[in-house]
């Protein structure tokens, strides 16, 4: 089965080989940029349009190359990985140039902007005045950004670092007082703080100076050469200055330009390619599949994936443990003749089923603190999953109870049992056997859905996988390994329930059932 999966994967990969070689790009006529459009002023969505400094600069580059720019919006964790898989030609997302990223096979253009890591605190929180003060505090960071790396370098322990998908989530966490501070790219923080978060402020000057670059995968240094040419051109002809003024609200100064020129060597060494060369490129060769399972990557990933799987299991089991009895209670309320109980349960179930789990997680994690309820990431995650599962499980139980022949309750009542005794001793034991298969489905769904709580900084299995994949090293290999981990958890569960079902079969099917029904109907 796994071999089949791998094969299918390989097939997909071979179709998707855009791999950004220049001839292919030219034939396509489009230059594909991957980005994470939640990052003002670099790129963000406004009125369903992706706009920002990067978008303007990227469009100009495409124009210089005689191509049309196409932007695809991803989660940050997927942006760099999409280069290797050939889903895009360039990544442009306010990406900091680092030696580490270069070492992993990413090729950077010359710097196109100065940046730096900056601290944000609640207004007037005088405990935090500089990077040294962060060491014993809770710090929110954006997952796999240079902000996270900088905070790690300061010596903040891993369990004091809350990792989020978006800068805004980290800022919200500081506002909600779960985190004491957050660290991120200066231009972005400045832009976001101007629009919202009046209760937060920047702390001094950036404590790490950085430069930003445009990224390609290592098989395409020529493309980066072309990008460099275009950037150099823009600096001279004024297009760069226009974009700078438009998005950062300040004029481009000679000092900034000088510093950018001084740090030109931050970018990767790439060949100079004249733009005219684009026209003489040969027709693309048909490439074979680029897929290969890299055992050394999988092996290195396993210890971290085990950690993630442990958290996934803990989240799932705890949520089932809480969600199942809660669901049963809601089911009993829903079939209760007491009207108010009935209404409460119905409203609850409909609200939970009618809204996305992701939203529920956000509400519990980000909104509850605003009304004074403090929850750790883990507790919030378990709470959200439990409450969600309870709604679905209550429907399973309700259907199960209603599927039990009404003669069972009548027989029990005719023997003098009250409603509660009859429920506990006659109806529910039969219900449990009947709901086991749908309950297993729910457990499996819950195990998979638990990946959604990664948005509140929980490093469960899927998040771990993403992290490793973003960090470089074949995403295909990493995600296949993650799939194996999920299967290793779900398959035994399904198998166990099948065994139980087989064991209970003779009891739930009376031998002369069919005959009996025919006679009654006659």
């Amino acid at each position, binding site marked *: 089965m796994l071999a089949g999966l791998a094969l299918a994967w390989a097939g997909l990969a071979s179709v998707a080989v855009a791999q950004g070689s220049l001839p292919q790009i030219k034939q396509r006529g489009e230059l594909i940029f991957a980005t994470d459009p939640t990052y003002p002023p670099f790129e963000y969505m406004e009125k369903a349009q992706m706009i920002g400094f990067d978008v303007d600069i990227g469009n100009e580059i495409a124009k210089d190359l005689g191509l049309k720019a196409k932007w695809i919006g991803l989660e940050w964790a997927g942006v760099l990985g999409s280069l290797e898989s050939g889903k895009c030609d360039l990544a442009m997302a306010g990406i900091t140039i680092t030696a580490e990223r270069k070492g992993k096979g990413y090729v950077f253009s010359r710097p196109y902007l100065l940046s730096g890591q900056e601290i944000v605190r609640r207004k007037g929180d005088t405990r935090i005045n500089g990077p040294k003060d962060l060491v014993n505090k809770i710090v929110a960071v954006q997952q796999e950004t240079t902000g996270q790396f900088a905070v790690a370098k300061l010596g903040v322990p891993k369990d004091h670092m809350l990792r989020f998908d978006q800068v805004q989530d980290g800022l919200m966490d500081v506002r909600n007082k779960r985190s004491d501070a957050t660290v991120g790219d200066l231009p972005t923080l400045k832009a976001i703080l101007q629009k919202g978060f009046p209760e937060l402020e920047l702390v001094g000057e950036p404590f790490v100076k950085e430069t930003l670059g445009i990224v390609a995968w290592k098989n395409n240094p020529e493309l980066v050469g072309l990008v460099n040419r275009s950037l150099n051109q823009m600096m001279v002809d004024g297009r760069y200055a226009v974009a700078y003024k438009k998005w950062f609200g300040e004029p481009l100064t000679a000092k900034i330009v000088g510093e950018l020129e001084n740090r030109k060597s931050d970018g990767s060494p790439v060949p100079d390619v004249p733009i005219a060369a684009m026209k003489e490129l040969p027709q693309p060769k048909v490439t074979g599949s680029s897929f290969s399972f890299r055992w050394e990557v999988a092996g290195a990933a396993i210890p971290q994936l085990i950690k993630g799987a442990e958290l996934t299991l803990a989240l799932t089991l705890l949520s089932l443990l809480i969600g199942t009895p809660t669901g049963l209670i809601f089911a009993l309320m829903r079939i209760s003749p007491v009207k108010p109980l009935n209404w409460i349960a119905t409203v609850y179930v409909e609200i939970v089923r009618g809204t996305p789990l992701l939203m529920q997680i956000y509400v519990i994690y980000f909104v509850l603190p605003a009304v004074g309820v403090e929850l750790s990431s883990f507790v919030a995650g378990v709470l959200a999953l439990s409450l969600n599962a309870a709604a679905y499980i209550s429907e399973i139980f309700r259907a199960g109870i209603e599927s039990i022949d009404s003669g069972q309750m009548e027989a029990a009542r005719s023997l*003098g*049992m009250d409603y509660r005794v009859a429920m506990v001793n006659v109806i529910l034991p039969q219900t449990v056997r009947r709901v086991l298969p749908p309950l297993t489905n729910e457990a499996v769904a819950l195990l998979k859905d638990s990946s959604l709580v990664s948005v509140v900084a929980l490093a469960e299995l899927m998040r771990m996988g993403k992290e490793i994949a973003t960090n470089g090293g074949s995403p295909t290999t990493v995600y296949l390994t993650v799939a194996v981990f999920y299967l290793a958890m779900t398959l035994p569960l399904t198998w166990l329930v099948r065994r139980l079902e087989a064991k209970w079969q*003779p009891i739930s*099917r*009376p*031998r002369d059932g069919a005959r009996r029904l025919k006679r009654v109907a006659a």
Partner: protein
Amino acid sequence: MSALLSIKNLYKSFGRNEVLKGIDLEVAEGEVVALIGASGSGKSTLLRCVNRLEIPTSGEVEFRGEPITAANANAVRREIGMVFQRFNLFPHITAIENISLAPIKVLGTSANEAKAQATALLEQVKLGAKADAYPGELSGGQQQRVAIARALGLKPKVMLFDEPTSALDPELVGEVLEVMRDLAKSGMTMIVATHEMGFAREVANRVIFLDSGRILEEGPPEQVLGSPKQERTREFLARVLNK
């Protein structure tokens, strides 16, 4: 002699469908009453009103002179056993557990004592060997005998039977009727809705003919079954006996 059960001016409607239209009936201790009538005439509804599985629309059912109400229904049901057309055994527990469940949970009988009583009851319905069988492993006749033993488990004063042999294959009817006959001989008060006219003639003290929710005719079996006064009764009997 005062009646053990008395039904007074009982009406029952389901929505706009009036099913029972003023039933008056007294059942004395030790009496066996056979309830006959066409399908849909209200036999089941009448029996279910007696132990309040259905709530009467108006009128009253008295047990030992006391009206049965929502408040005392659970207590009264311990003294009124019921056997259903479709057995309604609890499929997830064994025959003996089916019998001992109510004594343990309702009367608070100890598990050991309940088990001993259940064993004796299984002997009484001639199923001593099937104590540990699940209902699904028993034939229809065996299931119905376990259901009778289950109803007897609370030592009821009255037993209600709702067409106890209608769901059985013909060859299995005899064994169930035999158990009921023994029960009648032992002096149990019984109301039996049935289409088994032979059984009614032989075992019942009184036969009641129900027609569209009214008692049309009642009397000793020889009279109601032998020389019925009402045309409707004659028609019904002709239909049943010619089958």
